[in-house]
């Protein structure tokens, strides 16, 4: 059953995109700008994991932990030094969008300059052997593992947002940041938390992507584009939308690669973006305008 295998592959890659798209969407929902440096966080996570494994000789758990924390902290620093000075001066979010494009180039080139632009493969620390799924299809342990990990982290995010005080504050801020500030929320701390979470989730995605494909400085901008498409498809700023959009994207990619040709993959991705923008610009779960009080 080839199709079931492709569907599992699609869900697996889609769930990794979801980790990235959700963080991207979270930032968008609170600050209302498209953070194009988001992919940079996953590259930072990927490289930390790579060097922790290669040079540090750490096991995958320690290396991943370091990658998650490192990427989270980098995201907080990017916000602190590149975006905060702008948002404290002007309410126009376009300037942050431009700054994020700049930061994306900065992060990319820091890696090119310091460690070079060559493609690197993560050591084979994540099991890849084939697994038989209920006798229906054969897939790799890697696919199932990345799917399971993504689900665990997405559930973790959901629990954080629903069960904790800061999670509630983030949901309130994604509706109205200014009013959240009037409730006694330290807005700068809230935004730092949002960026930490976004960076951390991106690093999880980054580790799986660099194990599936290879790691190189420009990986970030390619994946940012996909996360952007997934987020627009699901509805910008909506977290369930980002997850569903990512799964659709992953499925579309894998089914295209499996049954048509892998060269058509990106064509399909951007085709989906264009069709979404024409047919339903607010996306599947987009906020409809009209809630204005």
């Amino acid at each position, binding site marked *: 059953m080839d199709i079931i295998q492709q569907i599992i592959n699609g869900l697996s890659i889609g769930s990794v995109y979801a980790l990235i798209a959700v963080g991207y969407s979270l930032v968008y929902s609170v600050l209302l700008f498209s953070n194009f440096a988001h992919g940079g966080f996953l590259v930072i996570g990927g490289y930390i994991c790579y060097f922790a494994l290669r040079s540090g000789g750490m096991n995958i758990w320690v290396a991943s932990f370091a990658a998650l924390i490192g990427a989270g902290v980098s995201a907080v620093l990017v916000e602190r030094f590149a975006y905060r000075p702008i948002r404290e001066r002007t309410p126009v979010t376009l300037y942050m969008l431009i700054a994020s494009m700049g930061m994306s180039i900065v992060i990319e080139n820091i890696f090119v300059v310091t460690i070079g632009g060559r493609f690197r493969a993560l050591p084979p620390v994540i099991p890849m052997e084939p697994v038989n799924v209920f006798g229906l299809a054969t897939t790799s342990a890697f696919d199932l593992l990345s799917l399971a990990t993504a689900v665990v982290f997405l559930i973790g995010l959901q629990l954080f947002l629903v069960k904790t*005080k800061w999670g*509630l*504050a983030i*949901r*309130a801020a994604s*509706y*109205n940041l*200014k*009013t*959240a*500030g*009037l*409730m*006694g*929320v*330290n*807005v700068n701390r809230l935004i730092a938390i949002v960026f930490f979470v976004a960076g951390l989730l991106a690093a999880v995605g980054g580790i799986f992507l660099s194990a599936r494909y290879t790691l190189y400085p420009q990986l970030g901008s390619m994946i940012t584009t996909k996360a952007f498409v997934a987020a627009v498809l699901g509805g910008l700023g909506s977290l369930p939308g980002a997850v569903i959009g990512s799964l659709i994207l992953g499925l579309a990619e894998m089914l295209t690669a499996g049954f048509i040709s892998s060269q058509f993959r990106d064509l399909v991705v951007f085709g989906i973006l264009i069709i979404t923008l024409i047919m339903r610009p607010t996306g599947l779960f987009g906020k409809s305008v009209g*809630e204005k*009080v």
Partner: protein
Amino acid sequence: MEERNPILSIKNLVVNYGAIQALKGASLDVYPGEIVAVIGANGAGKSTMMNAIMGVVKRACGEVFLDGEPLAEKSYQVVKAGVSLAPEGRNVFAPLTVMENLQMGAFPLSNRKVIATELEKVFTLFPRLKERTSQYAGTLSGGEQQMLAIGRAMMAKPRVLLLDEPSLGLAPIIINEIFAELTEINQLFGIAMLVVEQNARKALMLSNRAYVLQTGNIILEGKSSELLHNPEIEAAYLCGKKK
């Protein structure tokens, strides 16, 4: 006997929006337990004054004191110090439930018992909110949203409650209800209030004292009962609405 110190005191407050001066050195005092109204036309600087107290807009000049101490400049510190605002247009968190909105109001508090007590107070004042705890705030009627905005501001256990246009966009019968509840909050809990209103008659009937704000300046102050019968005020703000 009249030597009490104000709980909230604004001195020569100036706020600029670019080249435009929205507040040109306004001063006012709110004494413990009283309701003070600021009336004025659209664009007089009423909301600006609220936002400047709350730290939402920058104070270019002048000072704000809470109980004699300079009030912090960042919003979250202002709320923590004991001043909270029910903002203009209510601004409830539409996609959150009524309960979650109230929990957001209690954000600066960490003691669960205190939060539970405050919640009980709000529910006593607004039983309608208690019936709707799991309903999304966006689905409430305008009046209920205003009750939620007031309840939410009370959850922070403020010493001074600021209300920005509590009557905005509401039907007269609902306005009466809301204003009756404000009087109740003031009498039951002794919370001092500063209310800015376009609906001058209602605001003067609610408050003990009032200030008249005109294009960024306080031009008049006095007892509300006296201002209500001041011919100038009647002509400018209460015209023709006499009952």
